[in-house]
Structures are given as C-alpha cells and as structure tokens.
C-alpha cells in the first residue's frame, strides 16, 4: 500500500497541527499532504512544522480545486491509494483504517458516513440535516445505490478513482456531485461507518448565505447530471 492523506485546508492554523498528528498516529505508513488553499493565516507553516508535506495554492480557489491539486500531486508521485480528510478536526482519523480497508477489499471509493455509525457522533444543525437528507435521496436515485452521507469529505479511493476525480470532478463543492460522477462511470462505491466530531476551531466555510448558494449550486449540478445519459462518462 502506497497511501497519501490529502488534507485541503483554508485558514486552519489552530486545528491543522492536531489533524496532522492524529493522522500520523492513525495511519503511520501514510504520507500526509496539506493543500493550503491560499490561507491568510499560518496554516502552511504550522502544517510544515508538524511534519506534513505542503502544497500551497497562491490564491484561494475553493475546496474542490484544492482537493484536485492534492490528487494530481499524489498521482504524479505514484501513490496507489488516496485518503481525504478535512482540516477542521471533524474527521476522526482513528476511523481512517476502516476506509482504507474497504478500498483494499475492492471498493474504488469508500465514503465515511456519520449516519451509519452507532457511536456518539457530531449532529449537524437541523437545517443542514434536512439538506443532507434531500441530497441523500437525490444522490441515491441518480447513483442507483443508497448513499446516507453524500456531503462527507472523509473518503478513501483507489488510484484509478483518483485519476478519474482529478480529471472529471467539479471545482466547487465536489462531494455530492462527485458520488454521482463516480457511480455513473461504473466505480464501486461503499459507505463505511465513521465518527465525526464537532469542529474544534474556527468556523465552517459554508455559513448562512453561503449555505443557500451551496444548496442551490449542488441542486442545479445534480439536475444537470440527471439529464446526461449514463454512458456519457464511461
């Protein structure tokens, strides 16, 4: 296994060091790559000082582009498996081995789902839960398989899937649409129970007004995707 953990980060100087440390403890064989998405704070320096490799985007281009930069970096260096973890500390890296195992067992994409786990889990605010439920229904319909946590960015994927994602996935908010892209291209997707925690520092990039923009943008993208014939992406 040649694994890299890609962590897109924007202004996460307070949480990034603990995320790097926890990743190093949970998956000691993994290379940890922080993609600093044009942060205004010391995210890149803190990540570097914590022992992670850092790719620094000169301007803020959004989480999708940051993740793509991570995939491209990993692919150019021959990594065979890519783990994606958020930089805000919500994804507990102790559950990463379960995601990795799912890919080793043959899945192309393993998605960490907080809704499959019976343990104590971060509960998103009510409105966001409703949004996730709506996305879940639409993605389940379009992907033709049950997806409980489509907005989860806690994922592991094979090199083949990462190659596809690096070329075909959207720059803006790629999580939800990405699942449908993967499913329509014939990749095997599985969900794995994980525990997500409350954000420890800072604030989410998707807040109030932006949440409405996010929801509308994703809904439009899903609608457009539904108009494509399934063969289109194969």
């Amino acid at each position: 296994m040649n694994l890299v953990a890609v962590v897109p980060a924007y202004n996460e100087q307070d949480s990034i060091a603990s995320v790097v440390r926890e990743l190093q403890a949970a998956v000691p064989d993994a290379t940890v790559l922080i993609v600093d998405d044009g942060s205004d704070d010391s995210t890149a320096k803190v990540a570097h000082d914590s022992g992670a490799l850092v790719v620094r985007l000169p301007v803020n281009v959004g989480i999708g582009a940051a993740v793509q930069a991570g995939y491209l970096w990993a692919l150019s260096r021959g990594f065979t498996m890519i783990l994606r973890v958020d930089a805000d500390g919500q994804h507990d890296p102790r559950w990463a081995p379960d995601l990795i195992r799912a890919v080793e067992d043959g899945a192309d994409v393993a998605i960490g789902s907080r809704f499959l786990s019976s343990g104590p889990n971060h509960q998103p605010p009510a409105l966001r839960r409703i949004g996730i439920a709506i996305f879940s229904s639409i993605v389940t319909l379009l992907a033709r398989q049950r997806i409980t946590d489509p907005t989860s960015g806690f994922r592991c994927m094979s090199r083949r899937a990462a190659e596809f994602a690096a070329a075909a996935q959207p720059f803006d908010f790629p999580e939800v649409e990405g699942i449908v892209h993967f499913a329509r291209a014939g990749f095997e997707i599985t969900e794995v129970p994980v525990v997500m925690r409350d954000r420890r520092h800072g604030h989410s990039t998707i807040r109030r007004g932006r949440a409405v923009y996010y929801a509308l943008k994703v809904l439009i993208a899903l609608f457009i995707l539904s108009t494509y014939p399934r063969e289109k992406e194969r």
Partner: protein
Amino acid sequence: MIGYIVTGAALALLAAIMLLIRRRALHEAHALAWIVALSLIAAIGLAPWLLSEMATIIGVRNPPNILLGIAVFSLTCVTIYQQVLLSRTDEKVRKLVLHLALLEADLKASNPSQEPLIDQEEY
C-alpha cells in the same frame, strides 16, 4: 429629433468602445456584441420610420417600446455571453493556480530554500 439623439448617443458609445479597444482595455471579441447592437440602434435612430413600420407589423401601439424591448433583449444576451466568458476564464485561472502550485511544490522538493514563486501578500 429624438431619433438624432438616439443615434448620437449610440455613436458616442461606439466611439468609447473603439477607444477602449485601441487602448487594449477591451478585446475585439468581447466588444463585438456591443458594436453590433449599437450600430443597429444608430441605424434605427436615423430611420425612425423603420420603427413605425415594425410597430405596425408586430402590432405594438407605441413604436419606442420596440426599441426598449430590443435593448433589454440585447443586454440580456450580452450579459449571458459575458458570464460564459467569465466561467471559461474562471476554469482556466483555477487550472493555472493548480499547476503553478504543483510546479512550486516540485521546485521546493528539489531546493528546500526556494522562496514562493508568487508572494501571497500581492493578492
């Protein structure tokens, strides 16, 4: 009289667009829609009977309303066209940013003392 004012205003805007192109502040491709629309408006201003004829054919009681309709439609088309161009540029900029960052990472891997290629403070 109003016809001459419309033509004069359209020609003044056309002259301003030509000046912007000359100063390389506006690309010909982006100005094309404006040039066509303004030329059309200038022509209608000089031949107001054209508008009256059109109003009779279409069944519009007040001929200047046609001009207003054409203007709104043209502006909408130009705006959508600009948004398409903006989306294309957005995509290109993001790709460039990604490739620049990856090149910089390669450079830094071979030479750890390498300074950032772009000073973030500039943005």
